[in-house]
């Protein structure tokens, strides 16, 4: 085994570098960690003769070397060590590399590089760091693992989209979500919805099985990536799947079951009374039974997942194959998510200078959905809000569902609405790597991501609120093709100065076609599932391309001081021809001070490692117009009337001058490790400025149009992000590791046309100059000297008065509410609106404790989002409608009738503090190492996610957004499905 490895690596390097190795004697050694535990599989390299080997199961190695040869020992998670040979024994005691400065990173670098050389931050998360908590997707597993990232699951639906904000929102019209790459290939990261279900969308990364992931790299901000340029202006999340390794096939099987339930039910009207008018026409109460519909709407559900992988290979060929089956129930009754995946990756060395890697990821999923949030038809979550729960919602003996309010009956919605979404995803890539001459690396990547989607939305014949029924079918196809060529040439200018020149060009093409067929009168027999008769249809096509090229020059001085200069040209087809191609410069540096002698001799005892870094760069946002790819044209829609073709203008006027938003980012920070490498910090400050922000501007209707896209706004994000890692205890049997992150981002809109524009959330989310993006704007309580002004019946009232004009810092004029009162001290004048809250959190923090005792690992991961507001529409409706908690308080006589219902229009009353601390993960696992020839190891896992939510929020869960993945409208809760509490039991076998 050992010799095989040695021979293979030796051969490989001989071939690659074209040098002959000198024969010398064998030296032996052991590699251990600080606690004396042997490190298996550490790479030992003789830097003098380029010989390479790995340590065995006892941490031992043998390597050819002669005296004074320099031997390097490296192992993931530990600092690389170098020692000169002196004699025939050479032991390494490795220290933890808290900062992972020596870890090789791939994303955003021109060729392989170490983190040490980068001037901007990169977070690398290994699969084991993602924890054992049951997660709906990779994105959810990343929650609280990366400083500077706010990751929100938009709803509790099993395949719900997630919103990822790296260093705050950077656009309004486009998406702030980062670029998603898998194994070097740009994949479709757009939240998708096949069937139209309001703003609800699915997470495209729910297609990927977590077990296939080796590691994830996260890059934030415009300064970071010359390589991906403007597509990566929101940062990059790159996922690396597992690769094969030489040796006997290794088979892993994992299996788990999970149990989902709702963490908290909402208070409802449980007062067994109702209002009736007496003979005098006054309202009095009468006994009535009150039902809790939530008991039926929510359901404890189960899920299971099975995964098998086989890895192996020989010197020239390596493979990794895996497959998985997942079925997960939703907590909304009659919803689920079912997925099957299949993956293969093959790496082949073709000649001594050329290798190829081919991969395919196939995923088939189908979900059963029930409408919620702002999907209006057949929506039990919203029907629940408006329902008068004094009626038993269950169907009568004739199968008829009683009316419970002006919306549909939630029982009927759950039982009869029939929706599915299906996606077939296929991601394929081929990557060629060539080293035609020493120092020159060329790489060509061709990737293809294809998704075929299908959906059905059926309201059966005889449905109470739509008695003719309705059947809609959707088909969609999305293709992303990308091809990129990257090269780098590395040489040493002199022994201390190294130079790497990078260059490349890439091209992406995205196309989409969607077809909808619908019929709003369907046959009585519900087994008929085809559309016949008078069908209506529509069809939409979209094609977009992006391209870009770059040149990057990287200098290294003595492997401690690095400088990188880069320039990029990027373009996208969606912008005006004269504007679409732009130049973006970047510069970054890093300096590992602790490598200098003066440091080592002075501060080196305290700060074992100390690196300073800084980066400045610009990027465009090429994807801001992806949802409006033809915004440059005056478009006329095609229709038909009286049998003739008709053309009619869109409400959106064209604008041929549209150009990409431009982001300028400056970041600097330090990476340091202290106390004999037991404690590590990464601290970064950043300042981001986005100009030419694209906005949909409202036009005077006398133009003949309603809106036009214009480059109108600007915003800034400033913040600090801290990652910390500590080995509190590190002995052979017991280890205690703490990881923590803290991020604070301050977002400010610095200019929008007219000083204020509406973004969504029923008009309450706005962008206003000098305020954070997406603040809430609405009616507020009449107050005098800080006290509520009550009416004659003691009921709070809406503020009234007039508006005065105020200049904002960008010279626009906005209205500011001023309260007025009449002689009796009662509000007078126009009903007033003001800013009521801010959905952007004050700070994010996470705290993970991991204890390892022999084979046991216990991990607890808390995640906090603090100081943000949520517009709680559920609470609003509970003020006025029969099933609502507050309505019940009036019935119970705790408040006069009308006390709450009259506050229905006072939006301030339902802006809530959404701050929460969640126990994202609590897991206990046990690793059983078996020296059996068949089973190498077994791991048992017991874990839970979202088990505790510490929050004063009134509704189910403040961590949702009914506007789905929308960028500007955040923190909007309306009829949303809360994030479930999940328990998981699992077992992994390694053969």
């Amino acid at each position, binding site marked *: 085994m050992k010799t095989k490895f040695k021979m293979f690596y030796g051969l490989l390097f001989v071939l690659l570098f074209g040098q002959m190795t000198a024969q010398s004697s064998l030296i032996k050694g052991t590699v251990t960690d600080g606690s004396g535990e042997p490190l298996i599989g550490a790479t030992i390299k003789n830097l003098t003769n380029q010989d390479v080997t790995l340590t065995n199961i006892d941490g031992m190695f043998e390597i050819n070397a002669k005296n004074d040869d320099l031997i390097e020992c490296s192992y993931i998670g530990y600092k690389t060590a170098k020692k000169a040979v002196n004699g025939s024994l050479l032991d390494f005691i490795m220290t933890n590399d808290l900062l992972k400065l020596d870890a090789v990173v791939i994303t955003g670098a021109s060729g392989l590089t170490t983190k040490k050389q980068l001037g901007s931050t990169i977070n690398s998360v290994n699969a084991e760091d993602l924890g054992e908590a049951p997660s709906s997707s990779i994105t959810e597993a990343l929650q609280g693992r990366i400083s500077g990232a706010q990751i929100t699951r938009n709803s509790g639906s099993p395949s719900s989209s997630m919103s990822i904000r790296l260093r705050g929102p950077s656009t309004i019209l486009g998406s702030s979500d980062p670029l998603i790459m898998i194994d070097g290939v740009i994949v479709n990261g757009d939240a998708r919805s096949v069937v139209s279900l309001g703003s609800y969308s699915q997470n495209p990364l729910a297609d990927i099985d977590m077990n296939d992931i080796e590691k994830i790299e996260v890059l934030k901000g415009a300064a970071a990536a010359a390589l991906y340029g403007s597509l990566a202006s929101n940062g990059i999340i790159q996922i690396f799947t597992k690769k094969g390794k030489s040796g006997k096939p290794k088979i892993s099987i994992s299996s788990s079951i999970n149990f989902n339930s709702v963490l908290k039910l909402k208070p409802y009207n449980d007062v067994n009374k109702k209002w009736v008018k007496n003979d005098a026409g006054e309202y009095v109460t009468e006994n009535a039974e009150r039902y809790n519909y939530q008991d039926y709407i929510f359901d404890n559900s189960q899920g299971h997942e099975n995964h098998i992988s086989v890895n192996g290979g020989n010197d020239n060929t390596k493979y990794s194959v895996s497959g998985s089956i997942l079925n997960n129930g939703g907590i909304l009754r009659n919803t689920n998510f079912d997925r099957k995946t299949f993956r293969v990756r093959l790496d082949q060395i073709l000649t001594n*200078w*050329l290798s190829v890697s081919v991969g395919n990821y196939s995923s088939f999923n189908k979900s059963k959905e029930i409408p919620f949030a702002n999907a209006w038809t057949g929506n039990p979550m919203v029907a629940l809000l408006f329902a008068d729960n004094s009626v038993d919602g269950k169907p009568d003996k004739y199968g008829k569902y009683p009316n419970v309010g*002006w919306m549909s009956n939630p029982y009927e919605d759950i039982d009869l609405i029939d929706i599915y979404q299906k996606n077939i995803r296929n991601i394929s890539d081929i990557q*060629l790597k*060539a080293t*035609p001459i020493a120092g020159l690396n*060329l790489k*060509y990547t*061709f990737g293809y991501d294809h998704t075929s989607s299908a959906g059905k939305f059926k309201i059966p014949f005889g449905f109470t609120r*739509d008695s003719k029924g309705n059947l809609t079918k959707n088909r969609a196809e999305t293709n992303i093709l990308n*091809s990129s*060529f990257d090269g780098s040439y590395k040489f040493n200018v002199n022994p201390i100065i190294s130079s790497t020149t990078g260059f490349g*060009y890439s*091209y992406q*093409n995205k196309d989409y076609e969607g077809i909808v067929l619908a019929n709003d009168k369907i046959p009585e027999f519900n087994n008929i599932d085809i559309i016949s008769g*008078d*069908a*209506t249809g529509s*069809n*939409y*096509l979209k*094609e*977009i*391309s992006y*391209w870009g090229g770059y040149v990057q020059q990287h200098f290294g001085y003595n492997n401690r001081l690095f400088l990188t200069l880069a320039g990029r040209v990027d*373009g996208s*087809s969606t912008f005006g*021809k004269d504007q679409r191609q732009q130049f973006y410069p970047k510069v970054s540096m890093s300096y590992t001070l602790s490598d200098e002698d003066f440091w080592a001799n002075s501060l080196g005892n305290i700060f074992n490692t100390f690196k300073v870094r800084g980066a400045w760069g610009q990027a465009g946002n090429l994807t801001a117009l992806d949802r409006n*790819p*033809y915004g440059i*044209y*005056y*478009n*006329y*829609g*095609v*229709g*038909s*009337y*009286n049998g*003739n*073709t*008709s*053309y*009619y*203008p*869109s*409400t959106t*006027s*064209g604008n041929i001058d549209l150009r990409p938003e431009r982001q300028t980012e400056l970041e600097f920070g330090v990476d340091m490790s202290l106390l004999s490498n037991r404690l590590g910090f990464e601290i970064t400050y950043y300042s981001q400025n986005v100009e030419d922000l694209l906005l949909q501007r*409202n*036009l*005077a*209707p*006398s*133009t*003949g*149009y*309603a809106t036009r896209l214009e480059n109108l706004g600007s915003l800034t994000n400033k913040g600090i992000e801290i990652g910390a890692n500590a080995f509190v205890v590190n002995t052979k049997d017991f280890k205690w590791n703490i990881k923590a992150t803290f991020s604070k981002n301050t977002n400010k809109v610095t200019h929008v046309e*007219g000083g204020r524009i509406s973004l969504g959330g029923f008009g309450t989310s706005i962008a206003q100059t000098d305020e954070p993006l997406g603040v809430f704007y609405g009616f507020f309580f009449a107050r005098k000297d800080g006290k509520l002004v009550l009416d004659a019946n003691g009921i709070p009232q809406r503020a009234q008065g007039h508006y005065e004009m105020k200049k904002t810092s960008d010279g626009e004029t906005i209205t500011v509410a001023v309260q007025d009162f009449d002689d009796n001290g009662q509000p007078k004048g126009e009903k007033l609106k003001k800013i009521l809250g801010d959905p952007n959190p004050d700070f994010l923090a996470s705290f993970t404790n991991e204890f390892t005792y022999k084979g046991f690992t216990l991990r607890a991961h808390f995640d906090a989002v603090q100081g943000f507001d949520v517009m709680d529409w559920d609470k609003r409706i509970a003020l006025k409608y029969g099933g609502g908690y507050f309505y019940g308080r009036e019935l119970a006589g705790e408040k006069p009738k009308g006390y709450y219902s009259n506050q229905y229009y006072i939006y301030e009353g339902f802006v809530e503090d959404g701050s929460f601390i969640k126990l994202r993960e609590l897991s206990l696992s046990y690793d059983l190492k078996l020296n059996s020839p068949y089973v190498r190891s077994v791991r048992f896992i017991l874990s839970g996610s979202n088990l505790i939510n510490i929050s004063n929020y009134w509704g189910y869960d403040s961590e949702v957004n009914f506007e789905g993945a929308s960028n500007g409208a955040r923190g909007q809760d309306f009829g949303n499905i809360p994030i479930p509490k999940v328990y998981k039991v699992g077992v992994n076998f390694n053969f």
Partner: protein
Amino acid sequence: MKNIKLFIILSFVLVLSSCEKDFTNKNQITNDQVYSTEAGIVGAVVGMTNHFATSSYGAIVEVPGITTREIGITSTFATPFELAQGGTVLPNENTGVAKIWSRLLRDKGVAEEIIANIDNVNIEPAKKAGLKAYAKFFKAMTLGYLVQSFEKVPIDNSFDGNAVFSDRSDVLKECVNLLNSAINETDADAASYINSLVSTDFSFADVLNAYAARYNLMAGNYQAAIDAADKVDLTAKSVWIYDGVNQKNPVYQFAVFDNPDTWPTDNFGLTGDLAPDPSDGRIAFYLSPLDSVGTDETGAWPIEGLLGFFSSESMSIPVYLPGEMTLIKAESYARLGKLADAVDAINTVREKTDDVFGINASLDKWSGDSGDLKAILDEIYMNRCAELFFSGMRLEDSRRIHNEFVPSKEVDVKSERNRNFYPYPYEERINNKNIPADPAI
């Protein structure tokens, strides 16, 4: 060896050279295509007809209908609620008001583009004349419906966002001029081309004269109104059509389909002395009995089911009604002092049993005071309300005939109308520097 390397590197470059950067919109066509070709202009004519018939028309009927009690409200949704309450409770932001304003301005914009560009497009003369005349008719009609709801209106749309507003009299003069010019330019060939293009039942020549009669009456050109009305063949039918699938009757959509919150009121919303005779055939034509009332806050108006031209999603809606022509003549005679002629015209409408659309009052002669102008005008008003129910004319009629009534600025859920004109929609107010002050009421 070197050659193979070179070959492979070159093939990278070749794969990359197939980069497409320009995509035309395959979902839609652009304005350059529309206004430079015959197919484009014809499509735009059909397109604006389609949009007006299926979208604008709904707003024209619904919004003033609520203001003038043709429609009762059964919900507390802000848009109909504010309209039903009227006065200064009705804000610039009301989406109903915005709907009439923006939809009609879009249609008018297309008509203006056609008028501006058609002369440069190669189209055979008869077709070109018909298309141009139809665009002029469309501009006149959209201007007319706008000026029925708003005090001042921009005669021409403006891309720069600062369209100039004109007084009502100038707008009506423009409407009449456009129609007169269209009448002059339309020969039989042009008319027959338009008739088959835009509808299954359309008589362009009659439509032009009917609208000329309407706007002459509104402008106070009474003799011209009579003359134009006389030219209309009362047996001709012109309708906006709906296939019930891709285009649905817009009034059916808001007042009948799917348990709406806007319903026609009992007796066409007429009360007291103005209430129609219970045997008036137009009641049974337009309304089906329903024992229901609207919400208290909107006046608890008794409501009925809607029939007429609106009881299915595929029913056609008349472009004008023949009865309107007779009533235009009645009112013009009355205002010219020819009271006997006026009463004759009223009786023609009251005794009608052979209306081409089946709107037959089948009543006896009017028994009121034929020497009393006010009584005659009231009778004309009652007949207009019954005959032209749900056709978007009520606010104009109420304001013209009962102009002595000044609506209150307070909430008013009972009077015949609770506004004279609507406030200018918010988006126009904040984006157009030429916007006039809102009307007092």
